[in-house]
């Protein structure tokens, strides 16, 4: 029985959890010997205090929206896709192949093709654990972890032995052609006469991320497929009773999830690096877990949480610059604490709140 009103569930509990995570982070900063309030000021200023900061914050947020949506949609079917990291890496291969192997006349053509390539590769990588879960009952958490490592080995192999640019030492592909360059915020805003700093890598992919969030919302709450996914997530026996086939739902959900994770590559590989590097994901697949938990698996929540984590990542870079004693790994700690409080220790906050709610009945 859920005694809590809906607003407490979607807003109050995440807020309390976030405060707890920040509080503990503050204690750690104090322990290191710095003032946590100063650290927070630096992070906020650095992330949203300037157009430059916003540019980076939103660049990171773009990644996190994709990976957060990937984890969130799987959560709706009660599948824990921990393999966003690997799916995004493989998505990177897809985006790179599309950009390198076809002579694109203009980015408007290269971009949709890269979207399809990245999503298809990510979906295919997720399809294998999905199939093993659906048909053989292999625990998807374990198989997706394993597939992260396999993806990383595969990527290294391809970059070292197959895709490495000729005459180069570093394991990276050759740069993408200029026609596959995605317009950055600087360029796009210039079209309408708004000036924006040149260096932040935030680009047109952000709009795709927002569009993806809207589509995921429609999918989950307004389509028959979404209805079936949610039913299956709540109760597999009931879903079978209703004529919903778990095999089909697991496959479809995981492939959508893997596709979303793969889409991240259009932002990092195509939008920023414009070549395939050794680690094109940089932990964003795992951040997606924190983002989905924080955002209560709802697309709106995911977007908000992704922006928050974008702030943390950009703020963390600034923090290291301003306060050398606090290295950027502080962000990893905060991320861990957010996952811990919102995901694993949720009942610590929820149970007392429910008791309070019961008293006021």
């Amino acid at each position, binding site marked *: 029985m859920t005694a809590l009103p809906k607003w407490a569930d979607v807003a109050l509990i995440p807020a309390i959890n976030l405060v707890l995570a920040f509080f503990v982070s503050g204690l750690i900063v104090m322990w290191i010997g710095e003032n946590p309030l100063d650290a927070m000021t630096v992070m906020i200023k650095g992330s949203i205090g300037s157009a430059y900061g916003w540019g980076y914050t939103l660049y990171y947020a773009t990644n996190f929206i994709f990976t957060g949506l990937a984890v969130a949609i799987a959560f709706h079917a009660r599948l824990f896709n921990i393999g966003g990291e690997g799916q995004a890496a493989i998505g990177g291969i897809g985006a790179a192949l599309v950009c390198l192997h076809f002579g694109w006349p203009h980015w408007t053509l290269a971009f949709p093709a890269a979207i399809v390539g990245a999503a298809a590769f990510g979906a295919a990588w997720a399809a294998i654990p999905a199939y093993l879960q659906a048909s053989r009952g292999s625990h998807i958490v374990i198989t997706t972890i394993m597939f992260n490592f396999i993806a990383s080995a595969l990527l290294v192999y391809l970059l070292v032995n197959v895709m490495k640019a000729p005459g180069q030492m570093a394991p990276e592909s050759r740069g993408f052609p200029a026609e596959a360059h995605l317009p950055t915020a600087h360029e796009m805003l210039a079209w309408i006469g708004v000036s924006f700093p040149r260096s932040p890598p935030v680009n047109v992919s952000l709009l795709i991320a927002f569009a993806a969030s809207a589509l995921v919302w429609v999918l989950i709450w307004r*389509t*028959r497929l979404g*209805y079936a996914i949610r039913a299956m997530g709540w109760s597999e026996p*009931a879903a079978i009773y209703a004529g919903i086939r778990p095999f089909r739902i697991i496959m479809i959900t995981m492939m959508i999830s893997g596709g979303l994770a793969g889409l991240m590559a259009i932002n990092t590989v195509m939008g920023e690096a414009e070549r395939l590097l050794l680690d094109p994901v940089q932990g964003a697949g795992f951040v997606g877990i924190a983002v989905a938990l924080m955002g209560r698996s709802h697309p709106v929540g995911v977007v908000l949480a992704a922006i928050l984590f974008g702030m943390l990542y950009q703020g963390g870079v600034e923090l290291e610059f301003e306060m050398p004693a606090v290295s950027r790994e502080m962000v990893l700690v905060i991320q861990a604490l957010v996952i811990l409080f919102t995901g694993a220790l949720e009942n610590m906050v929820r149970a007392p709140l429910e008791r309070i709610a019961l008293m006021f009945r």
Partner: protein
Amino acid sequence: MNANGSDLRRNTAAPAIELRNISKSFGAVIANRDISLSVAPGTIHGIVGENGAGKSTLMSILYGFYRADAGEIFINGAPTKIPDSKAAIAAGIGMVHQHFKLVHNFTVLENVVLGAEDGLTLRPTLARARKLLTDLADEYELNVDPNAVVEDLSVGHQQRVEILKALFRRADILILDEPTGVLTPPEADHLFRILASLRDEGKTIILITHKLREIMAATDTVSVMRRGEMTATLKTSETSPEQLAELMVGRKVLLRVDKKPAAPGPAVLEVDGLQVDGERGETALKNISFTVRAGEVLGVAGVAGNGQSELLRALGGISPAKGTVRVNGKAIDLAGADSGADARRRSGIAHVPEDRQSLGLVMEFKAWENMAFGYHDDPAFSRTKWLLDIEAMRSLTGVALNKYDVRPVDPNLVARNFSGGNQQKIVLAREIDRNPDLLIVGQPTRGVDIGAIEFIHQRVLELRDAGKAVLLVSVELDEILSLSDRIAVMFAGEIIGTRDASETDEKELGLLMAGIAGEARP
């Protein structure tokens, strides 16, 4: 021990168990209200009541599984606090739960000693347990192979392991919660013989059941519970099933529902040689054949676990089966690509499952979402090929909730927050309102309050009178007798006999349910 002996004991010794003013609630639901009970040593005391009357909660309190909100417990006259099972065991209480608490991949011996080991290593305790098992095997007919792995044992043997667990802990008071629900009649008789010999050794036994027959056959005294309260405590020899039934439900039970004579039409459901494999590869349904015609209710009676669940699941498209099943003359796919529940619904079968909470509803879905459950592909609920028409779903739900008297009439309320009876009405509304050719329905009134029972029975009969076919599976013989036109009795995965409802009675059906087939009748 004879009757005089029991009386003597009762006069001299303190009660083995005495409960004073026990209360317990779960959130807003009051499970036990101010309950007092006294059980004399060396007796078998029965506790009867409907599902949800609070019997199991009361016994869980006695066994330390739940803590009472208020009240006191006395064991052999001494006030005793039972905060956990450990304290209950220390007080000499053993419990055989309705759902056994055994470790499936442990041996019988390992299960018996778990938590009652002597020292660091297992060997000495296992030896002691082995000896006890050999001793008890003869004394109480409690024989079971000590080295067998529990999951390989029959249900009856697993229950014996539970009793042995209690005896190994030197329990003097044994509580059995609905022990016969999963037993065949011979197994149940065997159990009662064991209990009687334990009683004669001086043990005190509490038997919880909702079956009046068992109370009359096995107990010395009996208490009746209704809606969380203890309504009476009587000597079994001085009461009757009728009196107990009345005390259980609070008024005279309507044994027969008023119904028009059946006007059966052509066959709607034809089942021929239906076969289903059970979980462990055994045959759960053996070659079942029967027919249900338009405008009649075929009742399927039987002790739980004799294949009725498998029958419902096979017909409902939940588990695969072999054989032939025709609906309106058309064969349906039983194990292939088109054997899912969606295909069954398309062929005109509606299914009210036995367990509404785990199958029939998604408990976290709102009423309007549940009202489309299984029919979410229906054009009435669709805006386009992909999109759901949520407004249509909501408004249709509002109408259906009113029509089926579901309270509260709130399409946005989550299923979990409706009462059991109202949940069942939601399932029924969804399945009946689509006017199916065939309704298959399992345990339609399990855990449902009296008022809702009559309502549900009326709807089922209305469907029959509208010329539809109904297959009713129930373990409640009263329900079968009052609703059915014909009655098939299942035993050990087979239909052991089929009777016209007007030409049979509880006694004959009881014999059939026990596996004793009478003279063959067509």
